[in-house]
């Protein structure tokens, strides 16, 4: 498979997970050269905070759905939309 056909299956990100858009795991600082299966979940620089992809809120009555909770859709919106490059052989 040529590098241009590579599609990384891993999740990257700090606050919100998003698709990894790198062309190759080689030299990737997120998955450490392909050694991590899930760089988003396995980050070690969040100190004591855990459950970064759990958006359910904790209210007085315990864990329940709150309409003001963040959802995965909010995460999608906060991730900068990526402009596509290297996908048009007529560009300049």
């Amino acid at each position, binding site marked *: 498979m*040529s*590098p*241009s*056909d590579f599609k990384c299956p891993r999740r990257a990100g700090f606050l919100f997970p998003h698709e990894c*858009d790198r*062309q190759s795991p080689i030299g990737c600082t997120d998955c450490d050269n392909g050694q991590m299966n899930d760089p988003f979940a396995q980050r070690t620089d969040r100190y004591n905070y855990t459950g970064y992809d759990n958006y359910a809120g904790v209210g007085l009555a315990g864990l329940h759905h709150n309409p003001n909770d963040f959802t995965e859709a909010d995460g999608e919106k906060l991730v900068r939309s*990526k*402009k596509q*490059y*290297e*996908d*048009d*052989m*007529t*560009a*300049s």
Partner: protein
Amino acid sequence: MAARGGLWLIYALGGGWGHLTRAAALALASLPRNRIRILTNSPYAARVHSALPQLDLVILDPSLPLKTARHETIRQVEAANPECLIVDTFPRGLGGELPQSLAALAATKVLVHRDLNPEYVAESNLHSFVASNFDLVLIPGEGEGAAFHDLPAAAITEPWLVRDPQPRARPGGTSRVVVCTSGNPDELAWYGQAVSSLRTLDPGLDICCVAPARPPGCPEDCWVEHWPASDLYSTADAVIGGAGYNVIHECAACQVSLIARPWPRKYDRQWMRARRAINNGWARIVETPMEAAIAATDQMKQPLIHERVKIRNGASGAVALIERKISSPPATSPAR
């Protein structure tokens, strides 16, 4: 390993006229001392070839699907087995197809560093990619190379021109405006409207619209099909054009004022180039065809600049730098 005295392959993929014209400028400066081949997918490649039949062009179909185009490009690069691979603008290739070929080739690798969108440079980590994959980074005109100019391998030349600047030669006493269309067919209508606006403002004006097809709204008698358009600049009092690499530097070299309409491009920042031209005092930026026509007719009354610093063709200097790099010891090659 490719033999010394071998082929120089110029990777000049990309839409429009610009990449191919810059490659042709370098090739003309290098012939006949070196064997040159240009790999292009410009829709205008056949026209360029008919004007310069001495060039060895490999023309890829611009309508090829992305994956096929990538594979065909790699195949052409490997089949050429060049002594020197010269990559115009896109370090990883326009489709991101070059990294493996760059690593595998024993050739001297040269990047021609036209302006490149910094967002793309950052996202693809191109600075370190260029540092580790290219032996020489040629910046064809100061101001073009913002992304990699700090690399030890970088060298600035004067802009590359497919024709050496000609002395001014205005026909008769009539004022002339040359309208040079861009390579994107979707933009032709803008130029057609600029021509018709010029004719409305000054019916006696000599208008020469150079385009691969007659723009909508452009009178038949104003349209010419000619390449390179810069042949006509020395006859003009003003040029209306875009703000791509060639028209900007060619107008500067021909000492003709440019009414520039920068167009959005995926990788090239035409607005930045146009602003630099304004700072140098010989261009104006416009947006609408009527603004362009008014600016051009104003130009007839009040020239922007009478005499500017002479610009020489930097292509010969670039060839000399490449030849020197090829003959230098391998120890100077980038770390891989």
